[in-house]
């Protein structure tokens, strides 16, 4: 066991964990940040996606040690002063979920995509989001939500 200083959602958290434990496991099981989901543990489904220094990252493939120097943002960190982020708002407005288990990862994946590419085409959205599984099959609404979020960002909502 080692001690790590993590920067999670703008807060410094000290956590004691084996250095090879995954960031996903540390977030869920030691910090009780359960909005980040386990879906496969192999980087195949995207449910565990978080932002590391702004980039969408599969937290099941990253050790806590290697995440210790990065700014970590989880789904719990997107809402600011009770206001949803544009991507969260767009997912809610489009009803872009069914069981909702993939939603955290989808929202963080989309947040990262829209940071890189403010106004992605449908093809770019599909390509970038391809690593995320929605087993309920809500893909068309998720694409619509990403487009809506792109418009919200262009209008300066949530900036």
């Amino acid at each position: 066991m080692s001690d790590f200083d993590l920067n999670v959602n703008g807060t410094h958290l000290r956590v004691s964990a084996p250095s090879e434990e995954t960031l996903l496991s540390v977030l869920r099981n030691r910090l009780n940040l359960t909005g980040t989901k386990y879906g496969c543990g192999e980087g195949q489904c995207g449910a565990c996606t978080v932002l590391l220094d702004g980039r969408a990252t599969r937290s099941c493939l990253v050790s806590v040690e290697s995440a210790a120097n990065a700014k970590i943002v989880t789904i719990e960190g997107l809402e600011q002063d009770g206001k949803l982020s544009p991507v969260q708002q767009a997912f809610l407005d489009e009803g872009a979920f069914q069981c909702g288990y993939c939603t955290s990862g989808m929202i963080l994946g989309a947040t990262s995509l829209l940071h890189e590419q403010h106004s992605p085409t449908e093809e770019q959205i599909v390509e970038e989001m391809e690593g995320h599984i929605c087993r309920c099959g809500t893909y068309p609404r998720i694409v619509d939500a990403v487009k809506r979020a792109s418009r919200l960002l262009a209008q300066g909502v949530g900036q």
Partner: protein
Amino acid sequence: MNHRHAPTTESEQSISPARPGTSTLDRRDFLKVLGGGLLICFTHTSSWAQESGRAFGGHELPKELSAWLHIASDGRVKVFTGKVEVGQNIRTSLAQLVAEELRVPFDAITMVMGDTDMTPWDMGTFGSRTTPTMAAAARQMLLEVAAERWHVAPASLTAAEGKVTDLQNSRSLAYGELTRGEKLVKTVSSAESLMTATQWKVAGAAVPKAEGRDFVTGKHKYPSDISLPEMMFGTVLRPDGFNATLVSLETGVAEKLPGVHVVRDGDFIGLVAPDAFTAQQALSTIQAKWDVPAQSSNQGLFAYLKNNPESSRNDGPEHVSGSVAQAMEAADLKLEEQYTVAYIAHAPLEPRAAVAQWTDGKLTVWTGTQRPFGVRDELMEAFHLPPAQVRVIQPDMGSGYGGKHTGEAAIEAARLAKAAGKPVKVVWTRSEEFTWAYLRPAGLIEIRAGARRDGTLVAWEHHNYNSGPAAIGTPYNVANQLIQYHAAKSPLRQGSYRGLASTANHFARESHMDCMAHVVGMDPLEFRLKNLTDSRLQAVFRAAAAKFAWGHLKSTPERGFGIAGGVDKGGYVATCSEVEIDPATKRVRIRRVVQAWECGAIVNPDGLRNQLTGAIVQGIGGALFERILFTNGRILNPHFAQYRVPRFSDTPQIEIVLVDRKDLPSAGAGETGLVGLAPAVGNAIFAASGIRLPNMPMAPQSGVPGEPDPGLRS
């Protein structure tokens, strides 16, 4: 499953006994928790109504009570239902119906679902009409209570917006005020007539998902997110294959890890650890040798299913009329074909998970299941407990699609918690979920059919081996029929799946209808309509065809158009699909799907569209590429990298046409929306290429029509 028997062993008894923890709710406390207000219970039988004076005195709520709701003095309404929310949006749509019948705002309602101590007994088989029927009866009773208070006739009062109003005397009382803070238990059993859908204001509207905000902020707690004080993390050692027996076991390294307890009971070997990482690490140090017997594989599967009947479950044909043999003899045109469907996995994104806690001999388990009462029964049996000593709570979960009817993780967590004397969480890995859950049955379907030259069907024979009898009967008019389901000894563990065998039977029937249309030289839609008198099915076929512009589209080798449809569980579906076939690689892409749907009066069109879109997308997997590969008791593809599920790029343009029949009762929409996709795609591939693909999945190697699939051909 060898770990179902009661966990009473020496090793467990040697571990410290369960410590008293925080108290869990008991049925005796049910009314205390609710506080004052009005509790209205609904029963279909009058016998229990007569005993309502001593309601809820005992431990067990009577099964005759099929619903109840509570109106608090502040007007908040809590509706209790044993149904569960798994993403199908029933938490929202049922609340809409209650709001409508009780005449309260939608936001006044909280649904309490899937908690065996708090909600009515429900095996998931009851119609959803019970709850709104109760709400209608409750409204009538509220009118009567107010009438008594004011000494007027109930008929002179109206109920709206959570209030009873006496228009003649200009006075009103909120529902919450009618009880004067007292605790009132009333039982209603009369079958009040429900409002007709044309009068609906809240129901029928696109109300957003209840508590939707919690799903975009990560606040919603799924079963695998539940955490309790002092909770430990459990894992279970899985055998090397199905039907394996343990030969040797070495757990010494694991037991030396800090805080790790190994639990052994026969061939059940599990452990608990203070954290999830250590639990997995400890598990990986266990050395076990298993004897796995030789078992069958995908090779020869369908012959195996045909030749290994489960005779105890076969009681003759489902349906016989006329004589198929004579009609086939006389038919101008005839055709036989064999269709197959593979075993597929539900692969819900949240795998099985449970947290178990023992408190003074009472077991409470939070778990993801579609049948909380069924899991309670499993736990009662496993631990020899009476119903009052087991509580199962089902938080809205990461879905199931028919795959979470059983309580494996619940039993495992409970065993480990009992042994550890602390609450224990068990979350299955993806590979465990693929391997140790159950699968949608594989099946062989043989159809032979005959028609007259004018396109009139005269004979239809349909045999389904192993996949199941759901929707096995044909909706088309055929004078001579022989339709039979043959239960078989499945080499793999199999069970329920969204739509059950309806998908397989529709795939076979609607593919064969397409073949017959081709043989008689008719347009596939025209051929279906010629042999159909069910007006509801005709209506969806026509609606889908109109939207798709069927009849204006001509298939080419690169682009095919197909149609299919059917009816099951009160849902009528017709699906048109457009597929594109790459001339060089033969890769199949579904480009456009139009699906018309009718299930009576629509309760929530937004939720319905979401469900139907999801069903189509999920159907793409089974239609084109999903399949479990296995040999000698081992699943060969238990990872998402090897078991392909539909992704963004697989999703076509989808258009849903809703046929709203406000004059008909609402039926469920979760399942039958899945059944049209596969045959519509197969028929489109045939229209483009002239190749009939009779095996689901049709293009498992990312799509080469006509190439036999080495993994599945028998």
